[in-house]
């Protein structure tokens, strides 16, 4: 079975600093990978996704992520954070586009606090 690990439960950064959130996955093949963000009392919003091709994918609001098959990782980055980036970030994977693979498996999430 596949799994997603986000090793950092909480990350605190200063506004304007860079941010990296780590995500490691376990799956024998090449998964489809996603980063979602959840603001308080809201649902999940997609930041970016990786299906294939260029391992660096660009997302919304200046976020990007890099896929590494050798490291089984999909880390999220942002060059300069804003206070509004304070939220919980989830890494997720699915294992295919057929009916058996569509469900998302999520990591536990990383809570990001941006200090002014």
């Amino acid at each position: 079975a596949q799994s997603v690990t986000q090793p950092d439960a909480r990350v605190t950064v200063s506004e304007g600093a860079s941010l990296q959130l780590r995500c490691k996955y376990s799956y024998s093949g090449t998964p489809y990978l996603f980063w979602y963000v959840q603001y308080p009392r809201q649902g999940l919003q997609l930041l970016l996704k990786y299906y294939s091709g260029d391992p660096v994918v660009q997302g919304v609001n200046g976020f990007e992520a890099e896929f590494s098959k050798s490291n089984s990782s999909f880390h999220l980055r942002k060059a300069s954070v804003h206070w509004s980036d304070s939220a919980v970030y989830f890494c997720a994977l699915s294992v295919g586009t057929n009916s058996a693979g569509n469900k998302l498996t999520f990591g536990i999430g990383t809570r990001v606090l941006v200090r002014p």
Partner: protein
Amino acid sequence: NAGVIQTPRHKVTGKGQEATLWCEPISGHSAVFWYRQTIVQGLEFLTYFRNQAPIDDSGMPKERFSAQMPNQSHSTLKIQSTQPQDSAVYLCASSLDEGGTQYFGPGTRLLVL
């Protein structure tokens, strides 16, 4: 586009009562997913419909939980005889087609006293 709509946003039930949660997917989306979010377990997949047909219910608890999609505009998740451990945020998501990006609703926060 109103996005995925979930009602009610909050629900409080007494132990042993029934709870029905509603989800209206984005118009034109053929796939609907249900997830449960708790502090302890995080986000867990429950069940999934494609074109209203149940496809995968591997995450559904075997007892007391059921889901239906009677038409393309809504799905329901029903919990019979609710227990305190059912307290969670229940999230519904829809996607345009199989394998497409899942768009999430705001969730229903269920509290079982």
